């Protein structure tokens, strides 16, 4: 049971004792609680010297709580409740609490995304969080909160009013009480590493003397137990607890160590510095901020902040290879990843530039030259980025390690001071250190004579962060005279599973650099041997997993004690769907921002973010409002006129022309549910008001016991925590900023941390599905491991687009020749397989499909390495799907003449019919940010659109294009932007490229090309129809991007060719595609068969449009870039 749950239980007991059956207000309650413990409550005026800047003080000697006499009784009660929390929970610590300590409305844990990941997680901060949780539970226990909201139908405001509580406290408590399952989180599911005393190998490690120790801890051997044993040994041997520094790689691990030490040494535990490397780095920066010209409270920017910082500076950098007019964040993601890797290796911006220049000097061919130029561009961005960080006196995650290393290595006084303070250094999960953290450790631990690290090279699965088992291998070089030991007993798995792991371990490349894995299975030979189940295809594989899961459940292994572990998120999502389709409830959130309930909330926020409120399409479709589609279109059309925002229109829907009475009533209900909120409201205020005040949104979810509904509640909890934690940076309304951030997180793939299931939800009766990465540190009675095939596990190596410049990574790979990146990948895949195998306690089932689609897939190369003992089950039992879900209803669009589309629109339909519906049919504005890049792009298109109307015989001249740009710019361009001139230059460069690629051509036939297909007409705009010097016809299709590996096989090109054949005859013209960023020219030479295919497809699309078929076509790359990402695939009922 974790400390937060202890806090809750104790708070509830105190509440029940004080409430004694009646229903006191908050103030009366805390007075009773204090009185029962003989404590006096003493109010002090603001500025009183006893408190000074503090809010409250718990004086144990006087048995009094001195507190600032806040304005409202509610706030005073919350303050006292917080101090009572310290009284109840932290007997060894004095409690003087400042403003930022006391906030009973803060969530238990910081949201796992963004900069809050490194925010202080020391003992003191945790104690303040625990006191806040205690306060909330004392004032309004969760069962009471739930009963008041659900059974008595009270809103958050009504509860706050009746019980004299701060509204935010009530809202946060409702969040906890309603959305996450109550009860103990049951620990993290890891074997405690043996009960009772330490085993001999743990004991020997804990008592190690004489130089640095590297403790190799195989899976399930009690690594944390040994580490805690070491701390206890040090303290019992007389070490000052404050001299002990315990470094981890996750807040979760730090919290676990803190709490386990506190169980044994309650007085010493708070004095031990336990936290992540990054938190420790931040601590050093704060302590020595003046030397580094930083503020004491140095802001930490995350990847999303960094994108925001850089996005608009990009045009000033003259990038060529990383220029992306459409989605600059994509390029920045790659560049920032490269910068982050550089910082992992302690390579600063100048050193990076020098390496890149050396690459260019040594480049022997075009590919090498391009790679070097790309590296130089990264170097340029790196320089600008560091400059921007310095200007803001901010740091990023990489700096949290790199700057302290530079400080400690360059300032002997500081280095000695840090070593004097932290005289005993312990490190958990040492295999996860990268070069920078290893150097930090060297700087802090000196010769390592008091260094004790534990890790398992075979579980090194964070290579993308620069972690490498090579650092573990280097331990002896970094700390000469170091000793290596290994833990000897596995407490987790059966002998058969331990044997399988050991057999595989012997074949792992990383094993050459560590001790042999020679584990005794403490549980003995008590379970079946692992097996491999072979299915025909992925669907059969899912059916086999489902069948085995149910068999094991029937045999007494509950669903939550089993797990499906996948290498990729794509497999995970597919298997989650497949299990649900077979009636197996799953514990899997998937991508948070793609979940229905979270998109409902995101759509709600768009009503506050932009005047056009495109999210109405989704919100109005909710059953509580049921606004017909035609009415929604009418509201949106009215909002587009610009006089009122959608939010304003909700207050007076009856005034909108064409809205039906039923629609007006639904819109009015929505307006009422959002009453009191305006666009200045924070996302948390909007969402908490909507969920806990006006709407009935939660009712359906909360009254259901179905696991899927519980997961919906958990997803809402995660999203609300996230919305609360987002800091108010950037410009625009608070909701706009949040939506921008969500979009960036999704684009950057940084929303993965939000997929974590909160600990209390892990015990729902459902099957956990997770990636192997996420399973690290967990264990399950049964593990199901799918996709053991080629390109499954191990996965295919993909070289990063901006790999480290040559010479940046200097790590020994056992003297092997070859590509260190590929070697790292191959090692990591082995480690992932090893981690997956070793999660299993009793049942280990491996699966593989024989083919995927039409392609046969070979068995994974890892399988033979498990030895001949692996049982193979051909065609295992399978559980069929229940009936497939019904297809989505069609939307009938009242015909206004025959369908007439542009080729571009037809391509939109081809890529995603739903997007076509939103954009073309409903004319939704979309929710994409109107960045300077988009505005530049719009100005460019305004010029390109005029090309078709150039009079015949007119040359395509740069001067003419620039004049058109000058006309378009004031309306479309990023006028008044700080870098307007740079954007303008960028646009002019593109137009210069256009002029250059059309030199010698003259505008010709300006009649539009069109093609009549059975269900409609397609208007084809090739961009430009020109005539060459010899009068030959040249059709040019213009694109603003880069040529890259473009193949000229677009759907509309087939139609253009067909139409051009009809006008000029086959061979009577030339059709070419021009990419304007790099002047790339691609002739179109589509085969007859391919063209026929394009025509066929176009006909099918036109017929589908006529029948109202607009299904969503999810795509992991395109969806996050779609302007309708937040609303898709919702649609109100009805026709247009």
């Amino acid at each position, binding site marked *: 049971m974790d400390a937060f749950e202890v806090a809750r239980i104790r708070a509830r007991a105190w509440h029940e004792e004080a409430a004694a059956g009646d229903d006191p207000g908050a103030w009366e309650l805390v007075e009773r609680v204090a009185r029962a413990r003989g404590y006096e409550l003493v109010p002090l005026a603001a500025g*009183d010297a006893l408190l000074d800047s503090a809010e409250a003080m718990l004086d144990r000697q006087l*048995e009094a709580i001195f507190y600032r006499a806040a304005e409202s009784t509610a706030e005073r009660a919350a303050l006292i409740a917080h101090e009572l929390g310290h009284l109840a929970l932290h007997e060894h610590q004095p409690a003087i609490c400042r403003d930022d300590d006391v906030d009973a409305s803060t969530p238990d844990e910081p949201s796992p995304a963004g900069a809050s990941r490194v925010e*202080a997680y020391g003992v003191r901060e945790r104690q303040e969080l625990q006191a806040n949780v205690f306060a909330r539970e004392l004032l309004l226990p969760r069962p009471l909160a739930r009963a008041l909201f659900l059974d008595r139908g009270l809103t958050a405001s009504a509860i706050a009013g009746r019980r004299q509580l701060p509204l935010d406290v009530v809202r946060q408590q409702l969040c906890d009480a309603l959305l996450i399952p109550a009860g103990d989180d049951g620990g993290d599911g890891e074997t405690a590493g043996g009960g009772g005393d330490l085993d001999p190998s743990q004991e020997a490690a804990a008592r190690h003397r004489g130089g640095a120790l590297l403790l190799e801890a195989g899976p399930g051997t009690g690594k944390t137990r040994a580490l805690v044993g070491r701390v206890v040994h040090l303290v019992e041997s007389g070490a000052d607890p*404050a*001299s002990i520094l315990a470094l981890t790689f996750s807040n979760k691990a730090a919290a676990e160590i803190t709490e386990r030490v506190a169980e044994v040494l309650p007085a010493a535990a708070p004095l031990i510095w336990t936290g992540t490397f990054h938190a420790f780095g931040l601590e050093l920066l704060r302590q020595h901020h003046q030397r580094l010209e930083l503020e004491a409270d140095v802001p930490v920017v995350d990847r999303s902040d960094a994108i925001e910082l850089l996005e608009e500076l990009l045009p000033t950098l003259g990038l060529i290879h990383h220029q992306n007019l459409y989605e600059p964040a994509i390029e920045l993601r790659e560049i920032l990843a490269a910068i982050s890797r550089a910082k992992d290796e302690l390579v600063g911006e100048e050193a990076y530039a020098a390496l890149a220049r050396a690459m260019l000097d040594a480049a022997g061919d075009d590919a090498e030259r391009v790679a070097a130029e790309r590296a130089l561009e990264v170097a340029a961005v790196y320089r600008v980025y560091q400059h921007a960080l310095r200007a803001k006196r901010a740091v990023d995650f990489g700096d949290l390690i790199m700057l302290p290393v530079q400080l400690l290595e360059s300032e*002997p*006084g*500081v*280095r000695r001071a840090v070593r004097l303070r932290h005289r005993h250094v312990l490190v958990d999960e040492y295999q996860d250190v990268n070069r920078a953290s290893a150097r930090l450790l060297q700087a802090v631990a000196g010769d390592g004579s008091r260094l004790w690290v534990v890790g398992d090279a075979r579980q090194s699965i964070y290579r993308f962060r620069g972690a490498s088992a090579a650092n573990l291998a280097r331990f002896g070089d970094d700390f000469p005279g170091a000793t290596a030991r290994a833990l000897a007993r596995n407490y987790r798995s059966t002998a058969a599973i331990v044997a399988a792991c050991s057999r595989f371990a012997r074949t792992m490349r990383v094993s050459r650099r560590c001790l042999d894995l020679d584990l005794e299975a403490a549980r003995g030979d008590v379970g079946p041997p692992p097996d491999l189940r072979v299915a025909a295809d992925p669907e059969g594989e899912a059916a086999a997993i489902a069948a085995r899961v149910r068999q094991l459940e029937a045999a007494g292994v509950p669903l939550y004690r089993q797990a499906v572990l996948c290498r990729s998120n794509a497999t995970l999502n597919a298997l989650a769907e497949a299990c649900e389709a077979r009636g197996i409830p799953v514990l899997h959130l998937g991508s948070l921002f793609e979940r229905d309930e979270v998109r409902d909330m995101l759509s709600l926020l768009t009503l506050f973010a932009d005047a056009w409120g495109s999210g109405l399409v989704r919100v109005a479709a909710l059953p509580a409002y049921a606004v017909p589609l035609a009415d929604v279109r009418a509201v949106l059309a009215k909002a587009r006129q610009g006089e009122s925002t959608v939010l304003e229109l909700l207050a007076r829907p009856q005034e909108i022309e064409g809205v039906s009475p039923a629609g007006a009533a639904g819109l009015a209900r929505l307006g009422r549910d959002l009453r009191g909120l305006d666009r200045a409201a924070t996302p948390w205020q909007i969402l908490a008001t909507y969920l806990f005040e006006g709407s009935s949104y939660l009712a359906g979810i909360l009254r259901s016991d179905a696991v899927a509904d519980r997961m919906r509640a958990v997803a809402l909890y995660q999203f609300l925590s996230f919305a609360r934690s987002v800091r108010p940076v950037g410009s625009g309304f608070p909701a706009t900023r949040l939506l921008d951030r969500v979009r960036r997180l999704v684009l950057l793939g940084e929303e993965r941390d939000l997929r974590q299931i909160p600990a209390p939800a892990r015990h729902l009766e459902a099957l956990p599905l997770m990636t192997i990465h996420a399973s690290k540190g967990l264990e399950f009675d049964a593990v199901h491991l799918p996709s053991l095939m080629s390109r499954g596990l191990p996965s295919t190596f993909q070289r990063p687009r901006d790999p480290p410049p040559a010479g940046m990574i200097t790590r020994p790979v056992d003297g092997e020749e070859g590509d260190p990146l590929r070697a790292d990948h191959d090692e990591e895949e082995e480690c992932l397989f090893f981690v997956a195998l070793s999660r299993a306690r009793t049942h280990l089932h491996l699966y593989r499909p024989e083919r995927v689609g039409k392609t046969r897939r070979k068995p994974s190369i890892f399988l033979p390495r498990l030895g001949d003992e692996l049982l193979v089950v051909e065609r295992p039992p399978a559980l069929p799907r229940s009936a497939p879900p019904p297809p989505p209803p069609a939307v009938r669009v009242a015909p206004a003449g025959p369908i007439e589309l542009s080729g571009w629109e037809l391509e939109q339909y081809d890529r995603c019919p739903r997007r076509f519906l939103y954009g073309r049919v409903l004319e939704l504005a979309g929710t994409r940010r109107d960045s300077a890049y988009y505005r530049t792009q719009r100005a460019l298109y305004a010029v390109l659109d005029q090309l078709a109307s150039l009079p015949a015989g007119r040359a395509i001249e740069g001067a003419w294009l620039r004049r058109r740009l000058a006309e378009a710019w004031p309306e479309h361009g990023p006028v008044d932007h700080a870098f307007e001139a740079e954007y303008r230059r960028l646009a002019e460069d593109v137009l210069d490229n256009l002029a250059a690629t059309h030199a010698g051509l003259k505008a010709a036939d300006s009649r539009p090309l069109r093609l009549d297909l059975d269900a409609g007409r397609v208007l084809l705009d090739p961009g430009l129809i020109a005539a060459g010097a010899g009068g030959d016809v040249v059709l040019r299709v213009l694109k603003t991007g880069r040529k890259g590996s473009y193949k000229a096989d677009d759907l509309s090109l087939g139609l253009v060719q067909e139409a051009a054949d009809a006008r000029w005859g086959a061979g009577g013209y030339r059709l070419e595609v021009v990419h304007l960023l790099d002047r790339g020219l691609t002739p179109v030479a589509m085969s007859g068969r391919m063209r026929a295919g394009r025509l066929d497809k176009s006909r099918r699309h036109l017929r589908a449009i006529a029948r109202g078929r607009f299904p969503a076509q999810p795509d992991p790359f395109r969806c996050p870039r779609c302007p309708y990402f937040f609303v898709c695939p919702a649609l109100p009922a009805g026709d247009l």
Partner: protein
Amino acid sequence: MSDERRSSLHAALEDFVAAAGSPDAATLERMISHHPQHAAELTDFAVEWALQEGLPASADAGPADDERLIAAALERLRARLGPAGGRPPADPFARRSATELRALAHRLDLDLSLLAKLRHRRIVADSVPRGLIRALAAALEVPLAAIEAHLAAPPAIASDARFKAAQKPRAERQETFAEAVRRSRLDPGTRERWLASC
């Protein structure tokens, strides 16, 4: 912190300076094993000493000017711990139970906030009425000088807890006895009596 404890800290720091040419972990550990009750102060001192050593030497002092370094480190440590010489007086309130202290407050016509402020030295010593000092000494059964010395020491830092760097302990604000009386919850009559005696 008792007199005895303070003076033993002074002795511990002197031992440290005598034992080490410059601060090192082994000497620090040895000193802590001799003076375990001063582990925190000895560590802070060693850290300050090391930091001072790392600073560039000023024009008028050589880099190896140990005395200067130690003096600077001591100065910084004193700024945190209390009065010059590191010998703050005993806490006359220590080891008294809540019941005793409350009874004392009642007897002396103080409320809890006034008593707490006297104990935590949040009141300017010179502003405390002599009569109250005498009464406190009598009630706590300590010499008059002990109360005077306690009150004259700088205000205690906010907490004995080991704050993280972002929340470095700092000297707290003081107020006069009259201000403290005005802010108290004493009844008007008692309050007037005290104010008249200030």
